[in-house]
């Protein structure tokens, strides 16, 4: 007998939940009972909760926003989720996702159902597994002005790839996560160099396509912080999808599964070298790509405002550390509708770009009712990781530190530097490529242990350059004293000194 049942978990009904009693089969000594998970199956492989361990939050929800493009209706839906399940808090991540915290696993199915209704999925947070397994393709970082300032709209490829990889069982058990970035605005606004695969959109001999960079990742895993290397080939736009797919498959099939520390793609690229990687890709795709010389991508961002190809404007609102709230999400949705097409773009610097704006001044005047608008590099480009939630730091956490250092800079009239802060060597705050970088470490102080930070300087993700250590294990007043010195050095063009 097979019974159609409605399973109710926390008030949410899931239909067609079948428990087939006749499916009891004898297998040796034991019997197997099949339980059809019914509608819940649609969430498996597409949704998960990540592990938090701070601020009394046990789980986060990282909602993938494909190509970072979101409309007002979906913004309001996420605001609703934040209000109902996440204490009204929300963050824009540096992969253009929106992250909520304080998620109770008892509410997970209800939340997934709501995301499913609006076509959104989440990262598969397999990083908690101890082995080299269950890695997924993370939200694909995409030029926030795709399709707005040039005809090369890389977001089409981004969305197609997202659709293809999401929930695809062939790509859910990568040795480790895989990060892709795409840009087509003529510069690097997506940090190509710190992705497993960075696709730099170019026009080559009048044809649109990509110059790929491979094997970047600035986390601590083997062989250490690495900036992606150019593959020295040109991938025509029409072949880019197959190309990216082939690279992800190479990672899946050849990256080490020996241990988590050795399983990132950068380790394979480092072991193989660019030539072998190129050969493997060409073998897989059956193509022979044109060899090209490619210099480092030009620095680019879309901060401030500018004109779109259609004569309308874009405006990027600085959001320090990406920290927002349900109210602010709603307000952004209102403003996007009132002043533009209702759509906004999340940026890899954790800001919010309004597009299709007719009058930037009026938009800014309205925005200033809720946001403190200081359009400095300091506020646009600085990053602080979510160490307060992941539990790897004590106070002052990365975002607290960022707030303090930004205020410190502003009190001295300095607004033209950027600060990248990671709570630990996993480098989610990209400290390795910060003009000024900080990375947390516990330091002995008196009888106890304090939250200290190493101070770095002279990095640049656009020039694909790693920062150098200034001083390690700083905390309290010492940290601010040394920070002030580094600030001077960096502002006086001491990047050259860092290069020595």
């Amino acid at each position, binding site marked *: 007998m097979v019974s159609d049942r409605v399973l109710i978990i926390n008030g949410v009904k899931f239909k067609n939940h079948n428990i087939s009693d006749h499916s009891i089969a004898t297998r040796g000594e034991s019997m197997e009972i099949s*339980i059809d998970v019914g509608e819940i199956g649609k969430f*498996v492989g597409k949704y998960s909760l990540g592990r938090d361990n701070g601020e009394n939050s046990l789980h986060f929800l990282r909602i993938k926003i494909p190509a970072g493009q979101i409309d007002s209706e979906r913004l309001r839906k996420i605001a609703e989720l934040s209000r109902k399940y996440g204490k009204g808090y929300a963050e824009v991540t540096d992969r253009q996702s929106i992250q909520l915290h304080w998620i109770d696993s008892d509410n997970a199915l209800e939340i997934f159902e709501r995301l499913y209704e609006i076509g959104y999925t989440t990262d598969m947070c397999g990083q908690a597994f101890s082995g080299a397994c269950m890695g997924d393709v993370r939200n694909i970082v995409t030029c926030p002005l795709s399709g707005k300032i040039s005809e090369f709209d890389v977001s089409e490829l981004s969305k197609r790839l997202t659709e293809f990889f999401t929930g695809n069982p062939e790509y859910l058990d990568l040795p480790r996560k895989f990060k892709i970035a795409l840009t087509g605005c003529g510069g690097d606004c997506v940090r190509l160099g710190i992705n497993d695969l960075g696709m730099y959109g170019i026009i080559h001999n009048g044809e649109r396509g990509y110059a790929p960079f491979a094997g970047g990742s600035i986390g601590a895993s083997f062989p250490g912080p690495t900036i992606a290397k150019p593959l020295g080939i040109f991938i025509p736009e029409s072949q880019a999808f197959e190309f990216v797919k082939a690279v992800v498959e190479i990672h899946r099939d050849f990256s080490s599964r020996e241990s988590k520390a050795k399983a990132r793609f950068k380790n394979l690229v480092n072991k193989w070298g660019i030539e072998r990687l190129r050969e493997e890709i060409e073998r897989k795709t059956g193509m022979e790509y044109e060899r090209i010389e490619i210099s480092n991508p030009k620095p680019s961002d879309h901060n401030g405002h500018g004109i779109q190809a259609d004569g309308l404007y874009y405006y990027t609102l600085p959001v320090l550390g990406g920290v927002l709230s349900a109210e602010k999400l709603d307000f952004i949705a209102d403003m996007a509708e009132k002043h533009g097409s209702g759509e906004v773009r999340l940026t890899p610097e954790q800001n919010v770009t309004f597009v299709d704006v007719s009058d930037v001044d009026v938009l800014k005047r309205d925005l200033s009712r809720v946001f403190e608008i200081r359009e400095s590099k300091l506020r646009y480009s600085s990053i602080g990781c979510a160490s307060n939630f992941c539990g790897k730091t004590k106070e002052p956490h990365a975002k607290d530190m960022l707030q303090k250092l930004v205020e410190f800079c502003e009190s001295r009239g300095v607004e033209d530097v950027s600060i990248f802060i990671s709570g630990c060597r996993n480098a989610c705050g990209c400290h390795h490529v910060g003009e000024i970088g900080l990375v947390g470490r516990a330091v002995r102080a008196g009888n106890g242990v304090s939250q200290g930070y190493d101070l770095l300087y002279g990095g640049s993700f656009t020039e694909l350059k790693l920062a150098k250590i200034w001083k390690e294990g700083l905390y309290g007043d010492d940290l601010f004293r040394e920070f002030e010195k580094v600030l001077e050095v960096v502002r006086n063009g001491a990047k050259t000194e860092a290069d020595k």
Partner: protein
Amino acid sequence: MELKLKQINDDVFELDVRGNTCPFPQIFTELALKRIESGRLEVITDNPPSARDLPIVLKRRGYQVELEKEGDHWRIKIWK
């Protein structure tokens, strides 16, 4: 999608949810518990947050729970 609940003997059942991230080990455990009238359910998970959270959640629901580490995974014993 189907879960395989193994009946080891009259009142011991086993559910292997390895490879599943949060919250699915918990959701699948709840489905299996609905299926079992009485006895002991042993859930195998390799997801560290589930090993952390599941015993807490289940105890809150009134179950008796024991957690054992077995190599690279955990066995969560739940009495119903």
